[in-house]
């Protein structure tokens, strides 16, 4: 640690080489951050979609709302459950919805992707406090009007305010745009459930969402519903349900990204090694001199290790800093769990920053260790004689 200043000045002295090495490590850290931010962003969006204290009911083993079917009689029976909270007028806070996918072309590449269409009731909006109509108005009952989540409106043809989408033998006019605080609902189209059931010729629900009077009693509520032989349903906390929806894609992105980052890091480590070996070779006499002045082998080892760590840390900082700009980029891709298009953004977190720096430090240590050992192992007399 004695020679931080010396290490730092040496890095400055060989500008081009240091810069190239810093860039190499920066690039790797950037990719590493980007991947973690991507899967973090996906997870955050879906977790934000669920409300604390809400529960969701789907058909047993169906995994997603799209594949789930709940018949009217089952839905009505569940809605009467005493565990569901009631509003000021004594109406239970529960909604039964239908969710289907429609194929619609994206604005960006004119290629089709799946947009989720949710048939909702008046209670659907009460149960999601983050819901806010930001432009236009709600649909008129009994008409072919729908409202669009802000993300869908942006990325899909026909989903902007005033535009029309065709499905179920009808043209649907988008009369309003809504936001839900960045959650997954913003990637959906919402319409009146009766109109949509009619158009799709599908008189069954996909799911029920309810607010529990006492969230602590969730397990009891779940056991009661899942144990009832008339229902064959599955009950989950809403947050857990949506978290589950990101699992497959998150694992895929992480596995792919971490593999790529590791391969990349090998390249960067080799780059750092080349730089540091050259630094050691060029400064043989300097090393001998310092040893003659009384610096120990260990101090020399640390001086070179510090040099490589400094390079790695600067690279790491550049990588992290550049990666934070990715927050401005919106990603839209198919979530493989639901097969529906989902918009989300790169999200940084303090953990990602920590991991990125640990990653950079590891690259610096691995790349700098062998050259530093070589520097420390010179015999003073030999090193002094090198020219």
């Amino acid at each position, binding site marked *: 640690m004695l020679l931080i200043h010396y290490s730092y000045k040496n890095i400055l002295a060989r500008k081009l080489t240091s810069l190239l090495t810093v860039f190499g490590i920066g690039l790797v850290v950037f990719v590493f951050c980007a991947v973690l931010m991507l899967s973090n962003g996906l997870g955050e969006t879906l977790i934000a979609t669920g409300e604390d204290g809400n529960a969701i009911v789907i058909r047993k083993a169906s995994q997603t709302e799209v594949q789930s079917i709940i018949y009217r009689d089952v839905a009505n029976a569940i809605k009467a459950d005493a565990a569901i909270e009631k509003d000021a007028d004594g109406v239970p806070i529960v909604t039964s919805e239908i969710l289907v996918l429609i194929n619609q072309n994206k604005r960006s590449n004119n290629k089709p992707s799946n947009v989720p269409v949710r048939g909702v009731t008046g209670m659907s909006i009460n149960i999601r406090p983050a819901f806010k109509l930001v432009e236009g108005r709600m649909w008129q009952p009994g008409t072919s009007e729908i409202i669009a989540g802000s993300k869908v409106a942006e990325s899909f043809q026909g989903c902007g305010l005033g535009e029309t989408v065709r499905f179920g033998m009808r043209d649907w006019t988008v009369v309003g745009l809504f936001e839900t605080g960045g959650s997954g609902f913003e990637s959906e189209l919402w319409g009146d459930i009766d109109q949509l059931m009619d158009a799709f010729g599908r008189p069954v629900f996909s799911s029920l969402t309810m607010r529990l009077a006492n969230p602590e009693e969730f397990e009891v509520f779940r056991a009661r519903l899942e144990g009832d032989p008339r229902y064959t349903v599955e009950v989950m906390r809403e947050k857990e349900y949506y978290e589950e929806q990101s699992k497959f894609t998150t694992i895929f992105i992480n596995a792919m990204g971490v593999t790529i980052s590791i391969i990349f890091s090998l390249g960067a480590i080799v780059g750092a090694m080349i730089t540091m070996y050259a630094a050691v070779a060029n400064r043989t006499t300097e090393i001998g001199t310092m040893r003659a*002045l009384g610096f120990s082998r260990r101090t020399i080892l640390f001086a070179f290790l510090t040099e490589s760590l400094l390079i790695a840390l600067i690279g790491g900082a550049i990588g992290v800093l550049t990666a934070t700009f990715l927050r401005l980029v919106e990603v839209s891709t198919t979530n493989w769990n639901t097969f529906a298009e989902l918009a989300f953004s790169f999200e940084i977190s303090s953990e990602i920053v920590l991991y990125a720096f640990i990653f950079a430090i590891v690259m610096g240590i691995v790349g700098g260790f062998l050259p530093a050992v070589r520097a420390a192992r010179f015999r003073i007399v030999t090193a002094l004689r090198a020219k």
Partner: protein
Amino acid sequence: MSKSFVQLHNVNKSYWRDTLEIPVLHNINLDVPEGEFVALMGPSGSGKTTLLNLIAGIDRPSSGEVSVNGESVSRLSESALARWRSRNIGFVFQFYNLMPVLNAFENVELPLLLTKLNRRERRRQVETALSIVGLADRMKHYPNQLSGGQEQRVAIARAVVTDPRLILADEPTGDLDKQSAEEVMELLSRLNKEFNKTIIVVTHDPRAAEKAHIQRHLDKGELNHL
């Protein structure tokens, strides 16, 4: 004669090249009292530098004993040697061996990093050392902005900054023009007279050796009186 400060007793040194033994120093005995100024002379390849390295503890004798101020240098462990060197020895090299990335001040400050001095104390000592060598106005200059003579004076400042009692110089004038060489030897002589430093200089330049009180001659690994 005062008691000896640097003492070499029956020192032998040889190098091994594969299986071939190359003798360098043969049965050297040397006594240098404190406050002496000694010049070791001899043609190149005579083993002068090796002798100096043995005294500095950066090389070890094949047999025999080297002691400085009563401390047996040849018996210390390597890390103990490094610590010992930083406190007791100032080293001056033929090619100055300054760190090119550090300026004059930082170069002189380098050995002080091994001490417990704080930043202000270090600054004071560096400034003192640089003013002794007459370069107080060149503190911010980098080695490549200095002349050879100036570089060597910075190196001497580096050697004295920790206030060691022994200064070892290996061909300090070997790479300098006549006038600079004169200045450097004058400086060493002053350090000897004014600060009572024990100085051992290796040189093959008789003019430089004149400044020393004692001149010893090394030839084919053996030490002779002149």
